[in-house]
């Protein structure tokens, strides 16, 4: 574990399968070809930040009926690890975060990391309601309500926790999957859709999002992702 952390700190470019004395598992992450707002993105960010190779399998909605029965619970994302299968986006993210040093330094920090990931899960579920609304006028109203009722109060609460923790990170003194989850949701979805005004009274959260965005491995991933899979809308 110590060796992994050392290599990660001096640049993940040099972290390859050959650096490890034991063999790296073969990972295949399966999801729809939805570029950004998918529930697979947190796991992709974890892989990328940790410098771990994975096969990013994306399929179209027309292919889904054939794939569906092969999944454990008729849902994706799923993660194949040397042929064994894990379902549920958060279970996958949590497994990878713990394995690759992005889940805090002890059990309490792991729990805090989980907590933040589950906060984002709730926000994603809440956002799904307006997202699924077909009527554009009603959708606009629902998104407005979502921003003022749900997002605003959560941002206040998180800003308070960041201030209390006073390290620049959500959990402990280092980057965890919690920071990646907040970056993915707030930068990739909320900021893209609504702009950055919601962060005007949350300088610590804004700073965290900007710092994650600028991490070399994250930057490398998002640039690759954005050119290979252009945003749909």
């Amino acid at each position, binding site marked *: 574990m110590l060796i992994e952390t050392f290599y990660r700190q001096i640049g993940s470019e040099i972290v390859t399968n050959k650096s490890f004395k034991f063999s790296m598992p073969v990972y295949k992450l399966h999801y729809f070809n939805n570029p950004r707002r998918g529930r697979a993105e947190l796991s992709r960010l974890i892989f990328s930040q940790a410098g771990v190779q994975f096969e990013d399998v994306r399929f179209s909605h027309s292919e889904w009926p054939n794939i569906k029965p092969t999944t454990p619970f008729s849902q994706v994302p799923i993660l194949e690890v040397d042929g064994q299968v894990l379902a549920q986006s958060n279970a996958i993210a949590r*497994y990878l975060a713990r394995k690759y040093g992005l889940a805090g330094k002890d059990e309490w920090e792991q729990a805090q990391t989980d907590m933040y990931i589950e906060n984002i899960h709730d926000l994603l579920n809440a956002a799904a309601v307006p997202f699924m609304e077909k009527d554009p006028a009603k959708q606009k109203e629902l998104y407005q309500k979502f921003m003022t009722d749900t997002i605003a109060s959560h941002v206040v609460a998180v800003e308070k926790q960041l201030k209390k923790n006073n390290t620049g990170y959500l959990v402990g003194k280092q980057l965890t999957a919690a920071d990646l989850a907040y970056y993915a949701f707030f930068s990739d979805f909320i900021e893209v859709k609504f702009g950055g005004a919601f962060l005007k009274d949350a300088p610590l959260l804004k700073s965290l999002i900007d710092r994650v965005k600028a991490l070399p491995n994250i930057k490398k991933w998002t640039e690759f992702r954005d050119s290979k899979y252009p945003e749909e809308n």
Partner: protein
Amino acid sequence: MPGYKLYYFNVRGRGELSRLILHYAGVPFDDFRFEGKDWPAFKSKMPFGQVPVLEVDGEKMLAQSHTIARYLARQHGLAGQNDWEQSQADMYVDCIYDLHGAMRTPTWETDPVKQKELFDKVNQDTIQPHLEKVEQHLVKNGGGHLVGQGLTWADIAYYAYFTTPIMTRLGGEVFSKAPQLKKLIETVGNNPNIKKYVETRPVTSG
């Protein structure tokens, strides 16, 4: 042993899983329950304005119902034997969380006829297909437990969420095509620690 205080409404809801885990494991804790009218006084104390919250040793607070349950399961040997089993247990609990979510809309429906229709639809579209898959996996795993060869918090979670709200709303017929899962849930319910707690816990609406 750390001092645990679990803050939640005086209902089963999203707090019950953690209570069941602690009772199963024989771990004492302050099962702090409050009525709806008292909530505003506590809300501002909670990290994200929500409950349940677990307070440890009077100083650290943890939010999110399944984070709390997972933490307690891991601390008290109920989370699986290795990383992979732990993730499989997580996966099952995340699934049951989705089912619980699907039950919410019908729960809020005030018209009894419409409500029954909505519950039947959730059963048809979401619960039965899920049970079909779980039954397959359970049989493949040897029929006894969801994960590995011993009880994990995943088994307790299925017990918790199926007894409330799924069976309270849909009845025992929900298991007509999932006899092994039905047996597993009964087994959890028959555990002496669980049984003692369930017989003596406050009687609440949900």
